[in-house]
């Protein structure tokens, strides 16, 4: 947290227009309208929270910042923390709070918190068309008078009221504190504010956050004031907290709720619609969480994603890029170029040999994985923006509860089907430590990423249905069993399940395009270097002869226990670097006729459960710490072989 903007490209600069608001209030539509085509999406430093910036269409000197949707600026999540930090540190020319006119109560909570930050504010009452259809009437003038800032009614998707917003942005009024807390809190606030004045931009906001025990604000204050003053700050806070049974933050929230009730009186009126036909999207949204109808809808969505990512992405696109583009043009050309230019065989092998950086790492990264993650990110973006993911969370809730998790873990688990590494990063958004460890473990153990899934399904497609059922049944069974057991072994609390179900909406193409590009950029920057590193390590093992030695040493395990041919060792070895890389090895062996049907099933189950790729391991270390990452890996490797061996024995016994 920094009071004044620094040179970092992501840090707030002066004169920006900052958009804030709840989820699903039409913030991104408004953002799209205010900005042109040039938009950057970047993670807020140290988080996975995305901040979008664009140049204002009507005033090219100003940037517009879109912050993540929040419920409150008294942060309870990463998103809320980031938005709060952006607001605390910026000197914006205007803050635009976008509110859903239908949900004014929830918006006013944020308004009251913005008032404590004393920012120049314009309140946009968006979706007035929908509010009107539901006979909700909001008196914008009366509300403006009560808040002391301009209130603009809009219907952003229909381009209504937007000109008035642009005019209001020229001279926004600074909002003043609206909620008066009880005397005790106010006295403490006054005392702290006095000391913070001149030290930072938003003394009341910082003082409030400090009193709430927010760690970032605590650190912020500690840095800005001298040691003696800091002790005094802490004393004020402790005195306040000790005197009442109810936590300070709850007391403040109650005071805000009271103010909201008073403010809504005479401003917000609803005349409950009766008999008006329910729109189709709303019905569909309801069916999607229905205990019976939700299931076929879920299956249909899964099938559509499979067709798009599995068949189109992993099949058609990969086929064209790998076989035609790389296989016939790029790689032969690169090999010829390297052979003529470089006289040393070792260097040639390093670049274009069987473990070459160009022929293996880059081909792999660009030709096989890129098309798959590209289609996956598009599909995921559509699921995200349409509002289906929270409904999926509701449908999966029971199943996840058996694994000691709840529906909220659906998001990282589904994302894991795209890329386990990225999914492991997003486990940060889970609330309790236990949830984070459990999801990290299950992702590493048995959630195949899109690349691996693509290869595995490609192999299973060539076999009968029974093989597919055995593979998926064993993997799903192992996930459930390990989750169930781990939930009982790992100490700590599971988080409570509360999730908002937004209305189903048609996703915006431009928004999905921007998000997909940002995610692809992340993939190229973070994941591709690891393919190169992995290939270089394999090259080194091969050159030093260590590869042959390892094959020899692990023969009892691979040949006797799993019943696989000795060449399978290679696949497991590269599987240490990438699970899908390992699966690709089996793919090759199966094509060469080296594996029987039973061997393929055993090999696929084992490699699916095998250690995550090296990128995933590094992220596990970063997110969960070395100890947990090593413990998870030390469990998974023998466990994968155990399951594989048992499956082998069972198949043999059954004949």
């Amino acid at each position, binding site marked *: 947290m920094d009071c004044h903007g620094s040179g970092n490209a992501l840090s707030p600069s002066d004169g920006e227009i900052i958009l804030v608001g709840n989820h699903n209030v039409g913030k991104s539509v408004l953002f799209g309208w205010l900005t042109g085509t040039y938009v950057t999406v970047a993670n807020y430093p140290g988080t996975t929270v995305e901040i979008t910036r664009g140049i204002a269409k009507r005033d090219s000197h100003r940037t517009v910042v879109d912050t993540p949707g929040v419920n409150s600026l008294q942060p*309870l999540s990463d998103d809320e923390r980031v938005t709060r930090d952006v607001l605390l540190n910026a000197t914006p020319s205007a803050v635009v709070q976008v509110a859903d006119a239908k949900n004014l109560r929830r918006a006013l909570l944020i308004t009251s918190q913005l008032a404590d930050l004393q920012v120049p504010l314009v309140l946009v009452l968006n979706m007035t068309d929908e509010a009107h259809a539901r006979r909700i009437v909001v008196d914008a003038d009366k509300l403006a008078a009560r808040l002391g800032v301009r209130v603009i009614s809009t219907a952003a998707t229909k381009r209504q009221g937007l000109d008035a917003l642009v005019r209001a942005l020229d001279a926004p009024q600074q909002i003043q504190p609206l909620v008066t807390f009880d005397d005790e809190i106010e006295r403490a606030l006054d005392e702290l504010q006095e000391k913070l004045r001149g030290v930072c931009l938003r003394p009341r906001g910082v003082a409030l956050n400090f009193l709430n025990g927010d760690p970032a604000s605590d650190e912020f204050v500690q840095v800005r004031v001298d040691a003696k003053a800091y002790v005094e700050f802490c004393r004020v806070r402790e005195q306040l907290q000790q005197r009442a049974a*109810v*936590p300070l933050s709850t007391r403040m*929230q109650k005071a805000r709720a009271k103010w909201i009730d008073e403010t809504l009186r005479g401003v917000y009126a609803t005349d409950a619609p009766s008999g008006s036909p329910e729109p189709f999207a709303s019905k569909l949204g309801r069916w999607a*969480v229905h205990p019976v109808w*939700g299931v076929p809808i879920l299956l249909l969505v899964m099938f559509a994603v499979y067709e798009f990512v599995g068949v189109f992405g992993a099949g058609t696109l990969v086929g064209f890029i790998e076989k035609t583009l790389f296989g016939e043009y790029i790689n032969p050309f690169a090999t010829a170029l390297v052979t003529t230019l470089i006289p040393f065989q070792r260097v040639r092998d390093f670049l274009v040999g069987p473990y070459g950086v160009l022929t293996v790492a880059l081909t792999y990264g660009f030709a096989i994985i890129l098309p798959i993650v590209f289609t996956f990110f598009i599909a995921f973006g559509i699921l995200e923006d349409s509002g289906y993911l929270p409904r999926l*969370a509701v449908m999966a809730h029971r199943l996840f509860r058996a694994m000691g998790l709840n529906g909220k873990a659906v998001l990282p688990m589904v994302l894991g089907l795209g890329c386990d590494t990225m999914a492991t990063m997003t486990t940060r958004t889970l609330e309790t430590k236990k949830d984070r460890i459990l999801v990290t473990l299950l992702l590493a153990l048995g959630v195949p990423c899109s690349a691996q899934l693509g290869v595995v399904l490609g192999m299973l497609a060539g076999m009968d249905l029974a093989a597919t059922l055995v593979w998926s049944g064993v993997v799903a069974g192992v996930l459930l069993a390990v989750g169930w057991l781990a939930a009982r072994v790992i100490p700590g609390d599971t988080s409570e399940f*509360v999730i908002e179900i937004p209305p189903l909406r048609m996703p915006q193409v431009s928004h999905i395009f921007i998000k997909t590009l940002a995610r692809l950029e992340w993939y190229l920057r973070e994941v591709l270097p690891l393919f190169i590193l992995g290939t270089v390590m394999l090259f080194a093992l091969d050159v030093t002869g260590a590869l042959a030695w390892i094959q020899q040493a692990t023969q009892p395990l691979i040949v006797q226990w799993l019943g696989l041919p000795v060449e399978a060792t290679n696949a497991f070895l590269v599987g240490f670097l990438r699970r899908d890389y390992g699966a690709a090895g089996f793919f090759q062996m199966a094509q060469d006729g080296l594996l029987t049907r039973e061997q393929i099933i055993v090999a696929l189950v084992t490699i699916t459960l095998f250690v995550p790729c090296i990128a995933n391991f590094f992220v596990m270390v970063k997110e969960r710490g070395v100890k947990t990452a090593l413990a998870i890996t030390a469990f998974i490797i023998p466990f994968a072989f155990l399951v594989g061996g048992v499956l082998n024995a069972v198949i043999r016994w059954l004949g």
Partner: protein
Amino acid sequence: MWSIKPPAKTNTPPDAKPFTLADLAAGQRAEIACLECPHAASCERLMAYGLVQGQSVLLVQKLPAFVIRIDETELALDEFVARCIHLTQPRA
């Protein structure tokens, strides 16, 4: 504030168990009396969603998870959270 009820079916004292969202039937509506969560943060989150004293809640369904509607907001929650939301008895 007791409405007239038929004699209790069992001999449990009438005030032993509070009336919560989990006791409501799907499709029923009631007013929030108070929130009793184990952690202050849970209460604050629910309040931020608009679950405050006096608000009317509609229970849409109970399976596969509880779905409730408050004004124009729809929330999914599990039974544990539903038990934290105390309601005033709907009049028969």
